[in-house]
């Protein structure tokens, strides 16, 4: 099993959820994060003075999936999340040893 962490632009979340849903990805967890990357942030104005905001609001989507599905999920995310502009985000894939469904105590792939 793998964990897919996708850091995306917040306004893309709804579309990604729908697309993953369509391809039968039945669970995900999302959280608000701030990103720092090539997209260098922006200036804001406060009572007559400008200042730099380095951290850009992003959303992180975490999906634990069976290894076989990873590639398809990644492609789907790329397809939807891509605008071609800097700041589109990253996807990280990392190993997961085990998954448990709390409600039933099920383990491993049947718990995803």
């Amino acid at each position: 099993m793998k964990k897919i962490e996708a850091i995306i632009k917040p306004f893309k979340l709804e579309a990604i959820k729908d697309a993953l849903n369509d391809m039968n990805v039945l669970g995900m967890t999302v959280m608000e994060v701030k990103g720092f990357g090539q997209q260098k942030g922006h200036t804001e104005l406060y009572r007559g003075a400008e200042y730099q905001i380095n951290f850009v609001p992003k959303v992180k989507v975490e999906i634990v999936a069976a290894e076989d599905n990873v590639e398809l999920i990644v492609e789907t995310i790329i397809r939807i999340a891509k605008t071609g502009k800097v700041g589109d985000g990253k996807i990280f894939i990392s190993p997961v040893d085990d998954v448990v469904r709390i409600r039933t105590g099920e383990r491993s792939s049947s718990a995803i």
Partner: protein
Amino acid sequence: MKKHIVLTVLILGWFALPAFGLEGKIDGKAVPAINYALDTIWVLVAAVLVFFMQAGFALVESGFTRAKNAVNIMMKNMIDLSVGTISFWLFGFAIMFGTGNAFFGTSGFFVSADQVDAYASLSWTSVPVMAAFIFQAVFAATAATIISGAVAERIKFSIYMMISAAVTIVIYPVSGHWGWGGGWLGDLGFSDFAGSTIVHAVGGFAALAAVLVLGPRKGKFRSNGEAIPIPGHNIPLATLGVLILWMGWFGFNPGSTMAADVSVGHIAVTTTLSASAASLTAFFVTFLLYKKADVGMTLNGALAGLVGITAGCAGVTGVGALIIGIISGVVVVFSVLALDKMKIDDPVGAISVHGVCGVVGTLLLGFLDSSSGVFYAEKTADGLLFLGVQAVGVVSIVAWAFIATFIFVKIIDTLFKLRVTEEEEFQGLDFSEHGASAYADFNIRQSGGF
């Protein structure tokens, strides 16, 4: 616009302000024209200030409770205002001020300007019936809304509406009639200028009755009985609420003259001195206990001082006001702590502020009234008699409010259950009762980043 004024005035059976210096007729009584215009304006302005206290209550209550119930608090305040206004217009005003017997009024339902004779108890004020009504209606709404905070975060919305209606139709008007509407307590000489007992203690003890039947919020007490504070979600809003209430009290107390009397200056000063003293006192007391400056108690302290001075705002001196404020500030702190000890869960302190300090203020007037109080009366016996009357008034009104509410609430609990389910309580009433969230956009779905 202009044509209408004349029209209206005629329709409603009033005389316009004709030439200067003439007498006019208002609701059939002869009054100097300019006086009654000024009195009417003042009473309306005071009513507007008291009206705004609804916003103050809404903010204090939601600020002192959790975000997941903020919509519910707002709805309760909107609806008790609406229900209260209409039911007081239909029934409450007649029961309170209508001519009747020593216990309740029986005439003057569906208030309108041509019912002048229905309200003998208001004949002392020169303002027209409709101006008197608007002022009294916002008072009734205040009495009702006091309960909202105490029962917050666990009562069904529909049940709260029923309690609201009961308070503005029966509970508040009946004891109000005793004190202000020509009833037996007024005849006895009971003195409660703007309603420490008649408004605030009624609300506070009705709240206590409801809370006893309702029980505490899930998670408020450990199994060993220890109280767990559940901090409010928005202290700036709560503070704004307290400042709005303080401002509203400049209508509540000075406006209770129901006439453009010069004493309003004195009344405003005693009111604000007591509030200041009580907020400082509550602050110092908690500071001594915990070495921190507790904002919640300071806010409750200010309100306690305002409630405490309400009975005596016109009758005590500046020094008397300070004394009432200081005592109210001490009392409110220990009352809040005592209720926690007794496992009575009042999320905003309404019972302590309005109930306990309402009682305390009315009794203190028995000592501090600058003409008849124990410390001032020419003959001490007269002073003690006056104090006794105050005690009788307090006990009978508080007993009425508590018992009547308790019975009513018990009955509806048996019929419908007062409380939401445990699951609904965890989810928050905003979701279960209103299908809404107070701060939806702090959800991810709408968030603004790009």
